[in-house]
């Protein structure tokens, strides 16, 4: 088998394979990945909506809350079971999920998500990590 400009082409192929196999090499030798364990509130078993809803749509809910409370002045949220909550990140959400580092950041870090909640809200002192 004769290759023309084989040296250069093989070099290029090695770079190509290197780039595409880099994720395998990066993770090689590390422990198997599992989803982060969140620190759940001790005194409360149910969130304002179902676990599945909160898992996938919490950002939508928080966004709606912001628009409703700041722009429309509505501060009461009625959940799917008819229970009422005050629309407030710090008074409602963070009453149970007190620790941002142990709760919010866990998944956000793994998914490389940087929510802009904390551009305006102040993370409670003493819980910063």
């Amino acid at each position, binding site marked *: *088998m*004769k*290759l*023309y*400009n*084989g040296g250069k*082409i093989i070099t*290029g*192929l090695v770079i*190509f*394979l290197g780039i*595409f*196999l880099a*994720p*395998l090499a*990066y*993770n*090689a030798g*590390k422990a*198997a*990945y*599992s*989803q*982060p364990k969140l620190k759940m509130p001790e005194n409360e078993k149910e969130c304002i909506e179902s676990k*599945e809803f909160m*898992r*996938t*749509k919490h*950002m*939508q809910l*928080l*966004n709606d809350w912001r628009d409703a409370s700041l722009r429309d002045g509505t501060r009461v949220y009625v959940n799917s079971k008819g229970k009422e909550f005050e629309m407030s990140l710090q008074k409602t959400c963070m009453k149970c999920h007190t620790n941002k580092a142990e709760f919010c950041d866990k*998944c956000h*870090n*793994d*998914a*490389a*998500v*940087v929510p*802009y909640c904390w551009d305006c809200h102040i993370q409670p002192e003493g819980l910063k990590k």
Partner: protein
Amino acid sequence: MNAIFSLILVLALVVVATLGAGAAKMQTIFAYCIPGTAFVIFLVGFTCKIIGWAKRPVPFRIPTTGGQQQSLDWIPQNKWDNPSTGPQTVMRMLLEVLAFRSLFRNTKVVLKHDDGKNPIVAYVSAKWLWLFAILFHYSFLIIAVRHMRLFLQPVPFVIQAVDFGDSILQILTPTIYITDVLLLTGVGFLLARRFFDAKVRYISLVNDYFPLFLILGIALSGVYMRYIAKVDVMGIKDVVMGLVTFNFKVPAGIDVSFYVHLFLVSSLLAYFPFSKLMHMGGVFLSPTRNMPNDTRIHHHENPWNNPAVKPHSYEAYEDDFRAPMHEAGLPLDKSPEEAA
């Protein structure tokens, strides 16, 4: 017809994934077996294709590229368009690969009229193809890079930075990625060009439309996952990390749109080595781009010359056929008398 056929093909793939991972509950096959196989086909197929090309003899250098070639000292050479050395050629290749310089020179023919209303055929600049092509390609690159957040743990800072920059407009929740919009714009233009430009439509085949529809399908399924279905990203990271660390877990609770997206990407990967998409590797082997114009500096040995066939000069030819040529009255360098 070609377009409709391609669209039906892509829709069929969507249906296969929807039924397979949704109704038939074959999540494990669609999450691990198919993407893994497709990735292997992609890598092996790509490599074989390039090796196959590398076996082809390199032709005589093609000097018919734009720009002034190296000439007399007082004639300025266009070093990037018509290079004569290695580094200059590297520069031309970089401009080609990173900035699509050939496409930037794209022109179109128009019919204009001078003052006396005489028709003039003119070639005018047409940058639209270049613009949307470059938007499309760079968006695709950035999208691929920021998907690495699902493939790597911990997520490297570079990937986080790309993701942050891409979603910096903070429109909607989850925030819109700039590259999503640009990619859809780019693909939309490249498709519209094939639909509405009669000349391009005439030469468009299924293997032109199919990748475009496939990429459009991938982009739309991704957008659907993020903004409409709002899939469980952590569940997906679990599956993807399982795939790249070979720790396979039974996926649970992930919306079917994820499997559609993944199946379309797998189709693209498996189709890649056998399609026009191989220009990803092929651009590096373009003979008009990657060879310096030094045909007047270096002797070119034709690689497929048979060494058993010796050079045969015109003089020798005339020696062979002098008598019949003279008889036919053909002009000769040496008359039979001189040669005798």
